[in-house]
């Protein structure tokens, strides 16, 4: 559909609604966690341990999704866990995008020796098994939020570098790049005005994908007890604890797992949806 000015008006697709909706919900939950969470996520109470979720006959009011073996409310812990997950997703995702995207852009547009150096680095980097690399990094840096973010950036910048490099290369041979150069614009200026806007849709798609991956990496690190301290709730930590009591209280494992799954899926779908919407060539 077009209006009189030729701008395209399209209804926001179901994909964007669902993924955006879930992420908005999560963001609100993270911001207003103290108001939303029915219980203190850290309060232990052995009288309320392993309560089943609300539909079960043995469920207790105030423990909507049940409680774990120490009597902590699962829902409250998921809500508080969203804080860490989203901070990691946003900060680590953005930093990874900036580092990898910049290097990829330079390699793909300048070619020559900058490309050779960056590409060889990427090749070497990608030969490391990523999870082991992360564990090693955390072991060196010490556990903590900053360490997790650094670890994710250090592992994952190569993904951006590779893809953005290829994209910048294919843009670099276009006639409008040559025209910009004939118009006397410098190489750096050309890169910013001609190449960057055209790799942006890809960058956005990759960025949201990376946010999902960051959430997973954080969960994996929590799972192996290398994330931030054990007394702040994380989804990965909950999954790890739930694993030990899965036969007595499956809900401790399953609910954070579902939350994690939906979040990662939403991030990737959001990226695809945004790319379709903002890529001038696709729309």
């Amino acid at each position, binding site marked *: 559909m077009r209006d009189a*000015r*030729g701008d395209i008006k399209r209804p926001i697709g179901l994909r964007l609604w669902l993924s955006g909706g879930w992420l908005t919900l999560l963001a609100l939950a993270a911001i207003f966690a103290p108001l939303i969470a029915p219980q203190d996520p850290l309060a232990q109470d052995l009288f309320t341990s392993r309560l089943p979720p609300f539909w079960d006959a043995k469920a207790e009011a105030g423990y909507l999704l049940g409680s774990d073996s120490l009597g902590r409310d699962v829902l409250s812990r998921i809500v508080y866990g969203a804080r860490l997950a989203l901070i990691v997703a946003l900060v680590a995702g953005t930093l990874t995008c900036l580092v990898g995207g910049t290097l990829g852009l330079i390699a793909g547009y300048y*070619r020559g020796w900058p490309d050779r150096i960056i590409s060889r680095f990427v090749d070497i980097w990608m030969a490391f098994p990523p999870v082991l690399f992360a564990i090693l990094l955390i072991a060196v840096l010490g556990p903590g939020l900053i360490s997790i973010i650094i670890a994710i950036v250090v592992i994952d910048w190569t993904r951006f570098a590779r893809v953005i490099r290829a994209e910048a290369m294919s843009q670099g*041979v*276009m*006639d*409008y790049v*040559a*025209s910009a*150069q*004939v*118009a*006397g*614009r*410098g190489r750096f200026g050309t890169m910013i*005005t*001609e190449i960057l*806007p*055209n790799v*942006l849709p890809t960058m956005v798609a990759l960025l949201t994908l990376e946010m999902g991956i960051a959430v997973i990496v954080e969960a994996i690190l929590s799972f192996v007890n290398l994330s931030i301290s054990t007394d702040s709730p994380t989804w990965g930590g909950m999954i790890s604890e739930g694993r030990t009591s899965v036969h007595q209280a499956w809900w401790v494992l399953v609910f954070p797992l579902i939350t994690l799954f939906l979040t990662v899926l939403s991030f990737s779908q959001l990226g695809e949806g945004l790319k379709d919407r903002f890529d*001038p*060539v696709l*729309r």
Partner: protein
Amino acid sequence: MKPYLSIRNLCVTLKHGAPILRSVSLDVSAGQVHGLVGESGAGKSMIGKAVLGTLPRALHIRSGEIWLDGVDLLTLPLQERRKRIGATAALIPQDPLTALNPSRRIGPQITKRLVDILGWHKNAAEDRALDLLAEVHIPDPARVMRSYPHELSGGMRQRILIASAFAAEPKLIIADEPTTALDVTVQKQILRLIADMQARHGTALLFVTHDLGVVSKVCDTLSVLYAGKVVEDARMQRFFMRPVHPYSAALLAATPTYTNPTGSLKPVPATVIEDVETEVQQHDMRAGL
């Protein structure tokens, strides 16, 4: 009269030495239209690219001189060269579909040039762009300025590129097969438009094409290029009456005519190609390539 653009003995090779252009010389006089014809792969576009400093990375200029307005461009450092070219020359590219940045609106793509190179004020540049768009017969220029390239047709985009090429009042325009990507009806309009604009602005035009019919309509003089070498330089009328080089004659004979649509196409005979090959080889030997 002194030519505005003068290419002297230009040799361009692949990085590893295979020749692309063999000692090409040609002149474009101020305010004149010079055609550059030849078959695919003869190196036509590479001449334009060598002048503008946009040769692909794999190629480089081995020797020769490119005089633009009394200055040998090849003696200048690249950045200096581009600045000079940007101020005095412009390109009408072959493919209007890839020549405009898809993620930027049309307006800034035309005005940026004026603002950047000539230091115009933004409003003045916008007024100028509107005038130019009107001059190339674009309806509702104000709306087009706000459009993205994908919202416009190929013919429209080529008009915009022509407007954009003339924007900074360059002394020389290189048109690299400007009508090849368009269908025949649009081709004619665009051709007429380029000729009109050239005449009105008095710009020197180097018109690169493989289409002799097009050349006969717009050019004053022409060079015939074969395998990276100029085999004939001629004034228009003389060329069509009495081509001197056997390859030129064969090329002329091979042009399909609209007046005899059922007649079979005449290929360029192999003996002519062989003649040219020998001549190119002899030339190479003389030039020591």
